């Protein structure tokens, strides 16, 4: 919001500043920014379009080197959805990411509330621990977790992935949420109580609606992290019981040992990419706000 306001101010400023030949100056800027927009559009979308087109190629034309398919087909999609390798992986991905995200956000809400609102010693220490966990090389944990999970029966199970996902999602959730919580006008809670609301009512009617955007934003960002993970997924799972889509795609069985089914991989890639792209496009404003807020604080 403030960014937009600032931009608006700047625009008017440059307009009044560039008095002589305002039209040409303005047109020049518009053309320049349109050019930048085209560059960003092409740069971001070409690899996405490529994988979409590849997923729509017939297996005969898959390796012909053309960007746009010569023969179109939806067979690759029907093929992956009829194989339990993919549908199980999709179920695992959705379930594991949703559960890990929910737990992480709940724990982070409580911690972030304390960091944002309460005064206590050790606040810096908590933020330091978060930073240390965020910077921890995840691959360093894979060996001992693999060992431990096999001993206690968590290897190749949902909790076996939910636990590490949740832990590595916590630092960012705490940073982003405490940045949001700091911006909430908490005096309103007391004001509502003075006006006769019970503490519970004050929380539900006044604070919760104010906190919701921050929580939703954090949920989306954390979900993207869990949905994206590859290191843990490939190390701590071995069967369709818990394998997520990124791990499954990387190990797709070919028709024969010597042919990797790239059109199937492309179709599976498109299926896991579409929900993410929708999330990003719908919640762009919030993701930008959430990550930039967390960064300024960090």
């Amino acid at each position, binding site marked *: 919001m403030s960014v937009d306001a600032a931009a608006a101010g700047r625009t008017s400023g440059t307009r009044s500043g560039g008095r002589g030949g305002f039209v040409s100056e303005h047109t020049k800027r518009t053309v320049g*920014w349109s050019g930048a927009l085209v560059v960003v559009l092409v740069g971001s979308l070409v690899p996405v379009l490529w994988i979409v087109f590849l997923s729509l190629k017939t297996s005969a034309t898959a390796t012909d080197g053309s960007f746009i398919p010569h023969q179109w087909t939806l067979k690759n999609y029907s093929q992956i959805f009829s194989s339990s390798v993919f549908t199980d992986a999709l179920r695992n991905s959705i379930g594991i990411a949703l559960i890990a995200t929910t737990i992480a956000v709940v724990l982070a809400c409580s911690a972030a509330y304390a960091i944002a609102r309460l005064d206590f010693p050790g606040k810096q220490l908590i933020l330091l621990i978060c930073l240390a966990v965020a910077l921890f090389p995840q691959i360093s*944990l894979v060996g001992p977790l693999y060992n431990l999970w096999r001993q206690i029966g968590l290897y190749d199970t949902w909790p076996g992935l939910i636990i590490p996902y949740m832990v590595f999602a916590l630092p960012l959730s705490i940073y982003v949420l405490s940045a949001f919580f700091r911006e909430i006008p908490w005096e309103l809670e007391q004001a509502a109580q003075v006006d006769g609301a019970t503490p519970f009512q004050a929380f539900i009617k006044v604070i919760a609606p104010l906190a919701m955007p921050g929580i939703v934003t954090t949920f989306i960002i954390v979900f993207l992290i869990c949905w994206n993970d590859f290191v843990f997924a490939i190390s701590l799972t071995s069967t369709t019981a818990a394998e997520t889509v990124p791990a499954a795609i990387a190990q797709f069985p070919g028709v024969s040992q010597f042919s990797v089914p790239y059109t199937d991989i492309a179709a599976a890639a498109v299926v896991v990419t579409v929900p993410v792209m929708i999330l990003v496009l719908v919640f762009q404003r919030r993701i930008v706000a959430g990550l930039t807020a967390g960064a300024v604080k960090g």
Partner: protein
Amino acid sequence: MSTGTVTAPAPAASRRRRRHLTERTRAERRLAAWLIAPAAIVMIAVTAYPAIATVILSLQRADLRFPNANKFVGLSNYGHVLSAPVWWQDVFHTAIITVIAVSCQFVLGMLLALAMHRTLVARGLLRSVALIPYGIVAVVAAYSWNLAWSLGNGGWIPHLLGLSSDPLSHTFGSYVAIIITEVWKNTPFMALLLLAGLALVPDDLLEAAKVDGATAWQRFVRITLPLMKPAIFVALLFRTLDEFRIFDVIYIFNQGAEGTESISMLNYSTLLDRLNLGLGSAVSVLLFLFVGLIALLFLGVFGAAARPGSAK
């Protein structure tokens, strides 16, 4: 901000009134402890236990193929790793990828951040589209670029450039493709972190400099960059440490063939393909030390650079 001004006088006042406030302070601290505890305990348990286990395993001969031959061997695993040429080669590969990829991400990320911040044309569309690579699953991004570069699998890039040999069968081509994938995937995140810094640069300052006759480049170098120092620090630190752990993209491209094996790739193959937990754990600890060293180096360099800057 408002909470900042509300709580600001509190420390001074509380020092005088500490006795009277003990009960309340104590209750507040107790509540804070209860609220923080779940997250803190989970984070510490799940990272500290494996971290300690890694250190212990790294001091043992622990090979899952020979479970009965386990024994304490002191630092000999470290000796093996550090005297192996493959380790130093992998450090070198990782460093090359990290330096080039982060440099490109910084330059492109800064341009993207400036565009996201200042554009007058379709700002929402620009921001949404720019975020797409950030949201895309890393494995998908790796496959898309891998198949795009692969001549044998009918990629469009060799087709477009008219290459007669597969770029992915050479070291140089593989590095170019891997680094481009990393840059494409991670530039938006870099840009977002830099955008946070750009938003803190006051416009009146830039306007004033403009009135004084400073060129756009002078304004950027003399005003915007210095004011963005903390954001640049965070962005470079996060991206460098993340790039240094590069794993997914190399795994999908060639699992470290063509001289592109990174430290994380070596770590993974030692642990999970060769099942040598002792040696693999030593690699983990060394990787962890590297990451810590880079973080300290950053703190040192930027800390030193920031201090005289703030003193002026």
